């Protein structure tokens, strides 16, 4: 085999929590390509490795698997790719089986199972440093002899920690397959026996080559005693959640404001520099506003994922799922749905992207479907405008003590309505599902670990790229389409009303009135709903435009609008619009993210459809009841 030949195809395979991806990051550094396996949303990561010998490797990081009998799509892909059966994936030339040196009882069994595939294989005894710290002694030579494949120690979180692995790869003779077939059992009925054989062989290897002072790490026992405690554990979880929520909500705001101001300034500069005309408008209101509308989400996405990656790597995320599983399961979700739903209060886009940490596809889809019901920060300006204009600022009391502000209570009710709707929707989805099979939790709670900065940075970079490339494209295209609808045809020179009134969007808005009259929306609201599709808070400035107000910014717009709508709209209309925004299906960025994360337009249609139906129904009931009570 010479260095100029095609790169050797290596597949990294191992149990979840074996440190496989950290090892992959160490081997390939930033030379990674992240995509999906053909036809599914399971992530495919490939990277390049050039050994000091000059030999080149194409390294594939397979999804984590416990066994070659798949229990999930991830595991089925891992099995098919390493056997060379996956359509469109060339068979790997060799397998690198990554095992956690502190968890050999579980991981060695998988090594034995993989050995039977008969491909050239190296076992990477990962986290060798952690094993030594815990006083675990592993006789590598004995293990190597008994397994019949090379075994090397690796430390994925230390630079140079994969040196022995790379050397062993260079020495590897690819013609030689493992020579010690273990099981003679084949065919039906052999499965249980063969499972017992694998366990018996694992026990024999452990007795022969491993001495372990304790079955678990002392630190894990101590931390779990507190962090999984029914009272203290929930308290700690609430503190972590509060910190994440604060960070996503508050820390991102200055950066997002900065991006908004930057794009606005750039738009103004270009608008002033270029001659007036459609090109100017396309650049400023279409492209720059569109690109700005994409990157404005980045701060929230990066902050949220920094937390999620750190929690995942440290081993806390599965513990949070453990604490919350019972509650979430009652609503047809899983414990892992919690963090994505929490982050959806800031914005549904990072929230939906965060559902990738939910392994079960059914739970993941249910979480994606209800995430838009969490009241995102973009709805706040709309709520603030309407509450300020229509809800009197009075104290209401309980037991004679006037402590609650009515405006605050209404805002709270809107948030609560979103959460209750989400629980109801996921519960109904659970009842309606044809697939009634039991879904196991079977969640491993790995050892606590300190996350490595390199793995966090690579993970963050990947999330940012996925968002910018795949979601950003759709958002940009739709923003430009929206710009077209809002700008053409132009208003005639002798126009009296606002220009938007003459555009396609204006005409659509007028036509929509027929549909929206029963929920109490006038034509001004209908028109404002269209640009509100780009981002919900835009509805406020659009209303200002429709009412022909010239306002410098959103705050000024809301201030000028407030008395106008307080006079012009009935309370019933205002309440109906407030309720509409609890569901607010019209956010193209969210729909674009759902498209990306589910890889299916059908799911986009289902989620937009049900949100629209709920919004319409709830607004209809609100409006009609309010009118009947005399608020019309």
């Amino acid at each position, binding site marked *: 085999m010479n260095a100029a030949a095609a790169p050797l195809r290596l597949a990294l395979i191992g149990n979840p929590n074996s440190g496989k991806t950290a090892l992959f990051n160490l081997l390939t550094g930033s030379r990674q390509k992240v995509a999906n396996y053909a036809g599914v949303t399971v992530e495919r990561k490939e990277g390049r490795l050039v050994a000091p010998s000059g030999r080149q490797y194409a390294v594939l990081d397979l999804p984590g698997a416990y066994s070659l009998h798949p229990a999930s799509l991830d595991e089925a892909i891992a099995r098919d790719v390493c056997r060379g059966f996956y359509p469109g994936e060339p068979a790997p030339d060799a397998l690198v089986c990554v095992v956690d040196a502190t968890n050999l009882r579980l991981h060695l069994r998988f090594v034995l199972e993989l050995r039977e595939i008969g491909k050239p294989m190296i076992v990477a005894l990962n986290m060798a440093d952690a094993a030594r710290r815990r006083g675990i002694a592993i006789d590598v030579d004995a293990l190597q002899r008994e397994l019949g494949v090379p075994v090397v120690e690796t430390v994925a979180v230390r630079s140079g920690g994969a040196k022995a692995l790379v050397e062993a790869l260079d020495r590897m003779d690819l013609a030689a397959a493992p020579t010690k077939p273990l099981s003679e059992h084949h065919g039906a009925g052999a499965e249980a026996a063969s499972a017992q054989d694998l366990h018996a062989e694992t026990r024999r290897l452990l007795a022969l080559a491993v001495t372990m002072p304790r079955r678990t790490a002392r630190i894990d026992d101590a931390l779990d005693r507190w962090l999984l405690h029914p009272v203290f554990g929930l308290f700690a979880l609430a503190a972590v959640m509060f910190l994440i929520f604060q960070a996503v909500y508050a820390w991102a705001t200055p950066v997002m404001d900065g991006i908004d101001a930057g794009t606005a300034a750039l738009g103004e500069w270009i608008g002033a520099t270029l001659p007036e005309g459609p090109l100017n408008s396309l650049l400023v209101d279409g492209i720059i506003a569109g690109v700005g509308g994409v990157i404005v989400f980045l701060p929230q996405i990066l902050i949220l994922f920094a937390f999620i990656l750190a929690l995942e790597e440290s081993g806390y995320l599965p513990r949070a799922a453990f604490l919350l599983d019972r509650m979430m399961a009652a609503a047809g979700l899983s414990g892992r749905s919690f963090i994505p739903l929490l982050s959806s209060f800031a914005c549904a886009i990072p929230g939906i992207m965060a559902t990738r940490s939910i392994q079960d596809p059914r739970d993941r889809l249910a979480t994606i479907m209800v995430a838009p019901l969490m009241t995102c920060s973009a709805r706040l300006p709309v709520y603030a405008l309407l509450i300020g204009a229509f809800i009197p600022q009075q104290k209401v009391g309980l037991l004679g003590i006037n402590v609650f502000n009515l405006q605050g209570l209404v805002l709270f009710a809107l948030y609560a309505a979103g959460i209750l709707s989400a629980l109801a929707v996921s519960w109904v989805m659970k009842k309606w599902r044809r697939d009634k099979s039991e879904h196991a*939790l079977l*969640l491993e709670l790995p050892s606590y670990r300190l996350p490595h900065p390199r793995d966090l940075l690579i993970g963050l970079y990947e999330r940012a790229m996925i968002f910018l490339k795949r979601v950003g494209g759709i958002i940009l295209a739709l923003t430009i389409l929206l710009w077209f609808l809002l700008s053409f045809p132009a208003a005639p020179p002798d126009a009296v009303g606002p220009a938007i009134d003459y555009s396609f969007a204006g005409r659509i808005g007028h036509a929509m009135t027929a549909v929206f009259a029963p929920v109490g929306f006038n034509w001004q609201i209908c028109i404002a709903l269209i640009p509100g599709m780009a981002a919900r808070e835009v509805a406020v400035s659009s209303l200002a435009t429709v009412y022909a107000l010239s306002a410098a910014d959103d705050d000024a717009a809301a201030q000028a609008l407030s008395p106008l709508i307080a006079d012009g709209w009935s309370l019933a209309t205002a309440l109906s619009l407030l309720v509409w925004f609890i569901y607010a299906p019209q956010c193209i960025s969210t729909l674009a993210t759902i498209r990306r994360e589910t890889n299916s337009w059908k799911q986009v249609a289902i989620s937009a459809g049900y949100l629209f139906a709920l919004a319409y129904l709830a607004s209809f009931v609100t409006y009609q009841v309010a009118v009947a009570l005399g608020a019309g």
Partner: protein
Amino acid sequence: MTLTDLPMRTSATVEAVEDRVPNDAISRRLRELGFVDGEQVQVMAAGPLGAEPLLVQIGYTRFALRREEAARVRVRSNGASPA
């Protein structure tokens, strides 16, 4: 008895994982994860609501199992002394 009957932090030995349905995929996965005859097992903690799920130590690993899953694992207690 099964894992759900086992008192907290009491060492026991796995006897078998029973199938609820023919070719029970959950039972097979439990066996693959190490719930096989002779393995030492302990329930370490339980979730805050309805003592669900259970945190189970098997081999060197900890798994969260819902009670429905844990009820498939038949165990015998290692005597009265807690580990």
